[in-house]
């Protein structure tokens, strides 16, 4: 199979207006990826699926990534070919920001395999996929507000009493019982000494 650079050049020749760049993976795995601009992404995906030299008919893995440092959300597609048994070709799409411009084209019309995985990315990262046939929350319940996989997600204050809180759990415990410092909750040391104190 052609290298990522060759593939990018071929795609640029086929889609002259598209912005396509190679994201180099510095690690030993050396699985480089192609960063696409969102608007022609679906056409490119169809091309990748149908091109006789590539035949990337199988979208294995779809996942979101939160990049607060880059100020964007990213979705990554791992494509393989079942017909020609090669891969992966990795596609990345980035949103404009992390707050209001979080829309990306859905690739579910190209690969059905994206259906549940894009729902999951929508659920956990809050990326909205246009033209997804059934974009609902998948793992969290429908009334749930935030997106738990984002790096700045603050979990709700649903602290459950633990006999030996320490670290982050202790911080939570202190917040949860600010007024009444129950022995064994706010102070982890003699927790075993005061077994009767339970909320």
């Amino acid at each position, binding site marked *: 199979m052609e290298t990522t650079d060759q593939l990018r050049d071929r795609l640029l020749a086929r889609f002259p207006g598209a912005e396509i760049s190679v994201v180099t*993976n510095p690690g030993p795995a050396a699985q480089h990826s192609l960063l696409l601009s969102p608007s022609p992404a679906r056409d490119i995906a169809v091309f990748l699926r149908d091109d006789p030299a590539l035949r990337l008919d199988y979208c*294995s*893995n779809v996942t979101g990534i939160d990049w607060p440092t880059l100020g964007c959300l990213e979705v990554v597609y791992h494509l393989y070919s079942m017909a020609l048994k090669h891969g992966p070709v990795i596609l990345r799409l980035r949103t404009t920001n992390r707050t209001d411009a979080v829309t990306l084209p859905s690739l579910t019309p190209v690969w*059905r*395999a994206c*259906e*549940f995985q894009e729902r999951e990315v929508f659920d956990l990262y809050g990326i909205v996929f246009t033209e997804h046939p059934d974009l609902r929350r*998948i793992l969290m319940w429908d009334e749930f507000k935030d997106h*738990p996989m984002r790096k700045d997600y603050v979990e709700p204050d649903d602290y459950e009493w633990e006999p030996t809180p320490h670290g982050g759990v202790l911080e939570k415990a202190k917040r949860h019982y600010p007024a009444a410092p129950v022995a064994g909750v706010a102070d982890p040391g003699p927790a075993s000494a005061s077994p009767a104190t339970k909320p």
Partner: protein
Amino acid sequence: MIASGLQTTGAHVREVHDDFHGDLLEVSMGPHHPSTHGVFRMQVTLDGETIVKLKPVFGYLHRNHEKLGENTSYLGSMPYTDRLDYLNSMTNNWAYALAVEKLAGQPVPERAEYLRIILAELTRLLNHTCLAGFLLQDSGASGTPLMYAFREREKILDLFESLSGSRMMCNFQRFGGCRTDASPEWLAAAKKLTDGYGAFLDEYERLITGNEILMARTQGVGVLKPDLAISAGITGPMLRATGVDYDLRKVDAYGFYSRFAFRVPLGDHGDTYDRYMIRVLEMRESIEILQQAFRDLPAGPIMDPKAKLRGFRPKTGEAYGRIEGPKGEIGFYLISDGTPNPYRYRVRPPSLINLTVLEDLCLGHTVADAVIILGSIDIVLGEVDR
């Protein structure tokens, strides 16, 4: 190719009689339902007894495994992978170890690779044996086949327990090898089990494979077409039952699978019966692989001497590692930013993605068929919901 006794005709949507063409009935199957293999819900819309719409509902066992993985060290995620697909902790461990080894460029000694193959194939035997039992349970053969299957499964679990210390939560693979070495006694016991497994399969097949009721219930039920299977990312035995030759043990040849001679069984109808049959045939191939592995198992270390247990920090980069798990392609996608915790930790769950086509398979069939179609997809909710 699978020879089957009765003719299969494929999924056929039954014609709805006008007299009954009245109200549709919505039934919520699950989350607490013995046929859903855990806390899984199917929101089914019925016309009479025929399914006209089916929406799977997930999340009852969701614990945000991926967030946990991003908040613990690389090593700390290993025991959590046991709890994804809790029938197949050994292959989950391997998939995760493989992804991390790819990420860090960590070599694995030869003996450890062989041991991994032995354990993965034992896991495959275990999973497919369970599935054969569950599927029969789902189709109404209460108890007997399931108990026979569990009797054999327990022998494999005993092997896992005496090697790793735990029946199901093995936590056995490490980055750069395995945790403990297999003693000669253990290998002898495993070989004995493998030698006897063919006889068990023969008996099990005599019990059920030729059973006319099973054939009537499963043949032509839930037919999956190869095009849809590929597009929907179906992997594992479910894909191969449709006749698509795609087995990562051959395609990626991870570990030392290229050194083993085995065949990839393929179905030709893609129905529930083929999905059952594929598993039986795969078990027979697994026995072949195990025999070769016991024969060729080299001596040597089981852990790379340079591998680090504590303070493991892969260089910045990312890797997607995948193996052929018993349920399909189980993959881990990891991004390292040079810290002890992964920046992104993603599990590619075969069970969840195989459920993509559940509605397509069930449309036009009855509720009772939906139960066996779900059973033949082979899901574990620990992995679907993560």
